């Protein structure tokens, strides 16, 4: 009665075929990362040295190192974080701990999706119109970092909200039953239990912010500057814009130089990502509830 029929055999063949097909598709998607990394390491690796990281670019950016661009990226990312992390955590707390399912909450969620979905060049236009011109910050680290902060705000909000919601509701109820206020519950119970998840989101945001180019092009980053920024009102060089400049704007750049810059940039970004992913996996393994 339970003999395998021709139909069974055909179904199994389809099944095996589909599995292989989709497997191959997945590998073809994942493979480019490895190929790209490989090519960047092979061609850019020899460029990397302590001197490359700590020397100024010389001879019209065709020789020398990337020190001012590296410093500039650190400035831009740090200021952007100072702005977006508090706002992002507050927004996530509101959505996770206070908001009910109203039209207001829906509007906030839609706004977050759109902040993440608006093209980076439109964020750049906003930065020019609002921070450079209207608020008169000029082309400065402040204007560029504000633009970056608003653009990457959804990363912090989404990650924080997720880790807040992973804290079981019973924890909060137990605390409320003791007579604690909402804030005391958040401060003593919710935040301590989700802080590592929030940190994961922040690291991810650092990596996103460090790689962006379009939003900083017209708001505060310059292709070449002969000095390092002294305050947030100065312009700065940045790693991402430096890569754009030497691979499209400057002539007579030795072929290997942009590979070196690209390797540093992608190394920075992927290392931060790896830390974030590793941290998340470790957290998942450690979870007590």
């Amino acid at each position, binding site marked *: 009665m339970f003999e395998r029929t021709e139909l069974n055999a055909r179904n199994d063949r*389809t*099944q095996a075929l589909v*599995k292989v097909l*989709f*497997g191959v598709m*997945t590998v*073809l*998607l*994942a493979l*480019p990362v*490895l190929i790209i990394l490989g090519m960047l390491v092979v061609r850019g690796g020899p460029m990397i040295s302590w001197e490359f990281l700590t020397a100024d670019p010389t001879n019209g950016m065709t020789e020398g190192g990337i020190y001012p661009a590296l410093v500039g990226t650190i400035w831009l990312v740090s200021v952007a974080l100072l702005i977006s992390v508090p*706002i992002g*955590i*507050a*927004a996530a*707390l*509101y*959505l996770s*701990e*206070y908001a009910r399912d109203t039209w207001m909450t829906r509007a*906030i*969620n*839609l*706004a977050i*999706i*759109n902040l993440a*979905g*608006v*093209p*980076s*060049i*439109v964020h*750049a*236009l*906003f930065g020019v*119109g*609002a921070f450079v011109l209207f608020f008169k910050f000029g082309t400065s680290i402040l204007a560029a970092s504000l633009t970056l902060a*608003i653009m990457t*705000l959804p990363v912090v*909000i989404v990650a924080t909200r997720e880790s807040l919601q992973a804290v079981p509701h019973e924890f909060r109820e137990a605390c409320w039953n003791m007579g604690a*206020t*909402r804030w*005391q519950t958040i401060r003593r119970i919710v935040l301590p239990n989700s802080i590592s998840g929030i940190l994961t989101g922040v690291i991810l945001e650092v*990596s996103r912010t460090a*790689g962006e*180019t*379009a939003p900083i*092009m*017209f708001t505060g980053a310059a292709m070449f500057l002969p000095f390092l920024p002294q305050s947030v009102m100065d312009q700065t060089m940045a790693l991402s*814009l430096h*890569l*754009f400049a030497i*691979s*499209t704007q400057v002539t007579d750049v030795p072929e290997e130089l942009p590979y070196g810059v690209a390797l540093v*940039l*992608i190394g920075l*970004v*992927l290392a931060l*990502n790896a830390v974030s*992913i590793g941290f998340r996996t470790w957290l998942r393994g450690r979870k007590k509830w």
Partner: protein
Amino acid sequence: MSTVIDSGDADRLDAAWWIDRIVKVLVFAGGISAIVFILGIFAFVTKEGFGFVLKDMDVVEFFTSPNWRPTSDTKPTHGILALLAGTASITGFAMLISVPFSLGAAIYIGEFATGKTRETLKVLVEMLAAIPSVVWGFIGLSIMNPLIIDLFDVPVGLCMLNAGLILGLMAAPIMTTIAEDALKAVPDGYREAAEAMGATRWQVIWKVVIPAAKNGLVAAVLLGVGRGFGETMAVLMASGHSINMPEGVFDPVRALTATIAAELGETVAGDTHYQALFTLGILLFAVTFVINLTADLVVRGIRKK
């Protein structure tokens, strides 16, 4: 003890109550900041660009002329047809490749792969998403460009094909991740019921899981389109950036986003060219807003069920 709360306790409770109120206001301010920012983006981009819409824009020319010559001394023209065609062709080509691969990968990762393989593939897809736009542009410029010239024996490799392939790879992770989430959201009970009837894994996926996750999959594709449409640096560097009504995949093209990035630096704040570029910004904002809104409504469609 008859007094439950002495006056010191009452003061402390009072302070706690006030702190609670203050935090509530602060947190609410954080919550609505996202709305403030998105309205701010719309307001400021419109403020800078609207002068052009009111004064210099010839609506018919704007949408139907392929001539974008905003800096011409004799007769500047502001036709965006070629730029629209550039954006549409690159995005379309990217989706043609990326949609089947991303959905296939989502199904493989979500339904077939297990354990270590699954985790590894997910991490690789995440890494793909992390590569910065300007690095993709550089890859288009210095790796894909010579490769296309060699493989297809064409004079220049910066073209629709190059930008489309790069954009496809860039849009793939977001589509894969969202599609996989949509598949994961289908209750296991559905799968078990179908398997109990003797269906193979693939029959379960094809007849049960995909129909149940349909809305989420559509939203994934929409968000991928939005991503491709708005991509700037990679497209600027890999597309060839010349104004052209594309006729084949080897034609260099120019995208809306790339036009803003390449030309804004040459303008003076407030002049016609500057305002025209902001008008492109209004258009980009409007289109991505509609795409995101549609994706959101489509996803909400499933939740209601």
